[in-house]
């Protein structure tokens, strides 16, 4: 018989390293790394409800990973450097709408969208500018991109290889979660099955050649922002995760060869306890399904690690300074729920992309939680609370009902269930229904939003400067793209595109090597995507309200 969870935890905790800070309250009361009876769940011990690691933040605080991107690659590179100077220790790249849809900045559909809500990346030249002067060995990078995830990863690899960093040494995260695009975020390009082939290619390629890379960041954030409930966010996200596991296993990969590099991304919304319960339930469900349904044997395949971002939809345009408070409460929930990295939104994001000052205050909010409040000393401080344990169980029960529905849609396959649910607008309809219910409660005054439907005094006061993206930046980016097209070797471009089309037509081929070669030849993102589109076709959603 295995020892009590506490014994297992103790052994793991004993072999972990600790940060050099006093683990005590402000008044000097010493604090244990975790509290609870010996036979209770413990962090770092299956099913990991209380955290993936035994020592949690005693070994390492969460990564303060700030999401940024606007204008040209040079503009965003400056903001990245400012974040690092201010003490941020991770980067996450926001791309503009044309890049998210795999269009070049000079495409007619890109008019007015270039660099507006993220950075414009057209070719290897932009990727090089984006990370110029940033040590990618010490700062990990996440790239929030999905439909063109494989081509953008290829450009990132090409850029790193140029600077002499071998593939095996490149660390970072690619969002690459296409299923939630059809369900919620809606930046899709190819039909679901063709898109899933690209996801498969990234998982297989990185598992073989990029051991430090996180191949998919399975994202509930956008599902929640689109209006789902917390239980729907939890269940849809994990169902998508199971779908990727089934996809990779169908491609012949052993579950333990890729699952340790899957990570998650959840929303940190304003309902404090429900969010913490959601994270706890997510870890427990993932661990059980990975072991029991998918046969994982490596513990790392069962240990859910996640990034969190505070809820953009909870912010108000009225009295924007109040958003600092909302973000602080949400960030605290993410930390008490055991997140591995965190982005905090800025107070002005219901109006525009954040100014440098607003983004700095958002980072400072994390630093206050990390260094002033002592909340990071004890793992899962709510563990054992009757309320929190019951709420965690209830989240798990509600998610279970949703898994049953998806599994039934797929005839015993979560992969097929997710695809069928997308094709039949099942996910989209549920999310829209939940969003409308929240809106009804807001309009009825049952759900109070300070400054929006109550406590309106002060709404008439103006707010300071917001970030303006100019048409000049769009023109600068087009000029940059013109010069790339002029200076490259057209024969190499044609050859690379021919090879890409040829390999895309072979469903067994892995497209990553062809995409990396195309990146080196300065084939643009729009060209790669239109070449693939010629083979894959395009997805259109049947509009429904």
């Amino acid at each position: 018989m295995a020892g009590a969870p506490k014994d297992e935890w103790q052994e793991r905790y004993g072999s972990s390293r600790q940060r050099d800070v006093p683990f005590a309250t402000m008044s000097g009361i010493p604090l244990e790394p975790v509290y609870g009876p010996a036979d209770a769940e413990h962090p770092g011990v299956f099913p990991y409800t209380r955290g993936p690691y035994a020592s949690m933040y005693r070994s390492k605080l969460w990564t303060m990973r700030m999401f940024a991107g606007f204008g040209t690659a040079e503009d965003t590179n400056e903001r990245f450097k400012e974040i690092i100077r201010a003490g941020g220790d991770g980067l996450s790249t926001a791309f503009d709408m044309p890049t998210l849809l795999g269009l070049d900045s000079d495409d007619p559909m890109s008019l007015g969208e270039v660099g507006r809500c993220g950075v414009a990346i057209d070719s290897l030249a932009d990727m090089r500018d984006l990370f110029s002067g940033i040590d990618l060995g010490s700062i990990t990078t996440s790239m929030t991109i999905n439909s063109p995830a494989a081509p953008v990863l290829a450009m990132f690899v090409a850029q790193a290889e140029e600077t002499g960093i071998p593939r095996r040494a490149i660390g970072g995260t690619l969002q690459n979660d296409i299923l939630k695009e059809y369900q919620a975020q809606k930046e899709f390009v190819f039909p679901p099955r063709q898109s899933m082939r690209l996801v498969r290619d990234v998982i297989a390629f990185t598992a073989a050649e990029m051991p430090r890379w996180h191949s998919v960041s399975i994202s509930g954030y956008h599902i929640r922002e689109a209006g789902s409930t917390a239980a729907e966010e939890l269940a849809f996200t994990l169902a998508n995760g199971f779908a990727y596991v089934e996809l990779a296993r169908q491609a012949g990969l052993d579950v333990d060869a890729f699952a340790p590099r899957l990570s998650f991304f959840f929303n940190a919304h304003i309902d404090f306890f429900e969010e913490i319960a959601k994270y706890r339930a997510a870890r427990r469900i993932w661990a059980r399904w990975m072991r029991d349904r998918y046969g994982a044997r490596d513990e790392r395949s069962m240990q859910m690690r996640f990034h969190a971002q505070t809820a953009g939809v909870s912010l108000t345009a009225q009295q924007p300074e109040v958003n600092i408070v909302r973000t602080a409460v949400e960030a605290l929930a993410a930390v008490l729920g055991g997140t591995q990295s965190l982005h905090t939104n800025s107070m002005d994001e219901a109006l525009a992309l954040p100014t440098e000052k607003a983004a700095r205050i958002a980072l400072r909010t994390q630093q206050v939680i990390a260094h002033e409040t002592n909340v990071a000393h004890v793992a899962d401080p709510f563990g054992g609370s009757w309320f929190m344990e019951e709420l965690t169980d209830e989240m798990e029960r509600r998610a279970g009902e949703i898994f049953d529905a998806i599994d039934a849609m797929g005839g015993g396959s979560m992969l097929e269930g997710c695809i069928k649910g997308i094709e039949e607008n099942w996910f989209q309809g549920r999310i829209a229904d939940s969003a409308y219910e929240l809106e009804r409660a807001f309009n009825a005054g049952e759900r109070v939003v300070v400054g929006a439907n109550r406590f309106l005094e002060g709404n008439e006061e103006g707010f300071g400067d917001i970030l303006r993206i100019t048409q000049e930046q769009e023109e600068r980016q087009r000029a940059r793209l013109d010069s790339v097209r002029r200076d490259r070797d057209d024969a190499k471009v044609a050859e690379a595109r021919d090879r890409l089309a040829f390999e895309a037509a072979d469903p067994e081929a892995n497209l990553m090597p062809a995409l990396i070669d195309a990146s080196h030849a300065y084939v643009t993102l729009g060209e790669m995507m239109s070449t693939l589109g010629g083979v894959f076709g395009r997805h259109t959603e049947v509009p429904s309200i």
Partner: protein
Amino acid sequence: MPTRVLVAKVGLDGHDRGIKIVARTLRDAGMEVIYTGLFQTPDTVASAAIDEDVDVVGLSMLSGAHMTLAPLVVKALRDRGSEIPVVVGGIIPDQDADELRSAGVAAVLGPGATAHAVVSTVESVVR
């Protein structure tokens, strides 16, 4: 005759939470609502508005492209000889709202607009 509204997503922005809520809100207020779906151009929106003989066009925008695209929708309608009013809603800073109105946009609804504000704004531009 109920008011007929075309709600549209123009450009590359996939954020459709707001437009679906607005569509349902207007429908629940007794209006006939047609949703274009995502990724429309100013021309496809103007053509659909005229073909469907709507009383008002509603655009929902989050991506920051409103200053470029909303005036182009107004122009596409006027070029076709239509006077259908255009209402824009979404992440629109105050100073942009003034400029949009001078570019021919009939009304602007910012973030946090209540259902009542949405319905009364649409009613006011149709009259």
